[in-house]
């Protein structure tokens, strides 16, 4: 099995475990897989199924072995793929059971109203006890932590109970569901690795956009040309070839200058798509306007809304975003995108220059 032969190197770093949704869930793994998972070398008590970190599981199976100790039951649970020991504490049940016996006499006169909490509690405990004490052949549902003690894998129950399933409906549903869970979650390659692989490209892009956004904010830039910001991205490039050259040689041969230009192009594209920048005029001279700093655009949009809200057509609800957009394109610049307009509208609304009447309509009072 792959699980048993997973290299130390394949183990994802513990920092990232929490990002795997399976980590914080009770994984419904087959007992066979629970028995075969490799234990983490970084943190004992964490196991890996398909490089998914797992430490708690959810199992439904038949009790095929039982041993009772003073404090706990030890059930062998067989789900048809494997048998695992389950440690089920009974401490709180037994200890508390003695208390109502002592105090029961004092409180029994409170039963006049028909509802006797003591009796009800006793019933509840009885029920609890019945559900936690199983015989061989009965069905057990257990959720708990995976442990390895004396080289044997076991489950330490956090909850467990006897399942009444006289017509196997639950077992059948479970058998149908678990393969789906495997296909959709457990057997899917770890999402973390996906992120880790594309880490260099994605994060350098997001780093680049952040650098440029910060630059806009600090210097209150309203217009710029690409070469104005190119140098800002230089630090991202110099560190990149080292990481890519290891596994991808062709990329490494691309010169740093070209990489820088490519990164800049992608970054500007991304910023344009987000509406943070736009080009007022598309010409040879590549000038970008920073939407938030473009006073003229803000005024233009405000004017449009003020004027058109007076028109009968828009009097009731105000102007629709798309109407504003087409008006801006006609009267101000053809290249203002919807994303850019939305940013402008948002900032105008924050200043109470305009008011939104619905999700998409704006007016001026």
């Amino acid at each position, binding site marked *: 099995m792959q699980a048993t032969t997973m290299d130390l190197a394949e183990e994802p770093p513990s920092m990232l475990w929490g990002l795997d949704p399976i980590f914080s869930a009770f994984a419904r793994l087959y007992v066979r897989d629970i028995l075969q998972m490799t234990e983490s070398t970084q943190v004992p008590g964490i196991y890996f199924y398909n490089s998914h970190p797992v430490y708690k599981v959810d199992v439904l199976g038949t009790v*095929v072995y039982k041993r009772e100790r003073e404090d706990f039951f030890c059930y062998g649970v067989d789900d048809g793929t494997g048998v695992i020991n389950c440690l089920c504490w009974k401490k709180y049940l037994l200890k508390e059971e003695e208390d109502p016996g002592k105090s029961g006499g004092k409180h029994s006169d409170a039963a006049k109203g028909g509802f006797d909490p003591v009796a009800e509690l006793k019933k509840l405990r009885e029920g609890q006890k019945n559900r936690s004490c199983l015989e061989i052949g009965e069905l057990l549902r257990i959720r708990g932590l995976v442990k390895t003690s004396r080289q044997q894998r076991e489950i330490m129950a956090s909850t467990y109970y006897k399942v009444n399933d006289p017509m196997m409906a639950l077992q059948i549903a479970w058998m149908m569901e678990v393969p789906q869970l495997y296909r959709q979650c457990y057997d899917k390659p770890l999402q973390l690795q996906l992120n880790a692989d594309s880490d260099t490209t994605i994060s350098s892009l997001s780093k680049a956009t952040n650098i440029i956004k910060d630059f806009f904010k600090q210097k209150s830039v309203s217009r710029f040309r690409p070469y104005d910001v190119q140098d800002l991205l230089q630090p991202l490039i110099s560190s990149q070839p080292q990481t890519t050259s290891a596994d991808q040689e062709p990329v490494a041969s691309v010169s740093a200058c070209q990489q820088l230009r490519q990164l800049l192009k992608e970054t500007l594209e991304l910023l344009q798509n987000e509406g943070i920048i736009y080009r007022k005029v598309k010409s040879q001279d590549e000038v970008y306007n920073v939407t938030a700093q473009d006073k003229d655009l803000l005024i233009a949009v405000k004017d449009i809304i003020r004027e058109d809200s007076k028109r009968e057509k828009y009097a009731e609800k105000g102007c629709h975003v798309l109407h504003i957009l087409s008006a801006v394109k006609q009267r101000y610049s053809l290249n203002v995108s919807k994303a850019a307009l939305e940013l402008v509208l948002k900032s105008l609304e924050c200043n109470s220059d305009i008011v939104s009447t619905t999700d998409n309509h704006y007016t001026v009072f």
Partner: protein
Amino acid sequence: MLPATAVFHFPWEVNSGSVQEGESVRTFGRLVCYQPEESKATLSAQYASKEHHVVVHTLFVEPFNPIIGAQYIVLGETENAEGVGVMVRARVLNCVDGVNIALLQKAINEQRSFFRERECKQGGAAQPADAI
């Protein structure tokens, strides 16, 4: 310490020789006959227009309430008994009358095809020794 895993087998597989002697199985069938003096019960299931029987040795699960005609599920070890053929020495014998047998079969097949699929994906590396 722990008993071996009782893997689901269809009743028509138990007698067909695909199950080795001593292997733990779990199977199902309608109780058609119970002979308490011999601790012998017979489960039956229909498959491919044939009636298949599984003989169950019930010594370990006695006393139990035999309901002739009801569906039972049995967990136990197979052994070759003289004159009977393959017999399942039951560790668990549960009455599950009312069970949707068609759905149960589907679920068993679903589980098997999942494991088959997974072993295929893992390539020749996985040993088919524990194939279900």
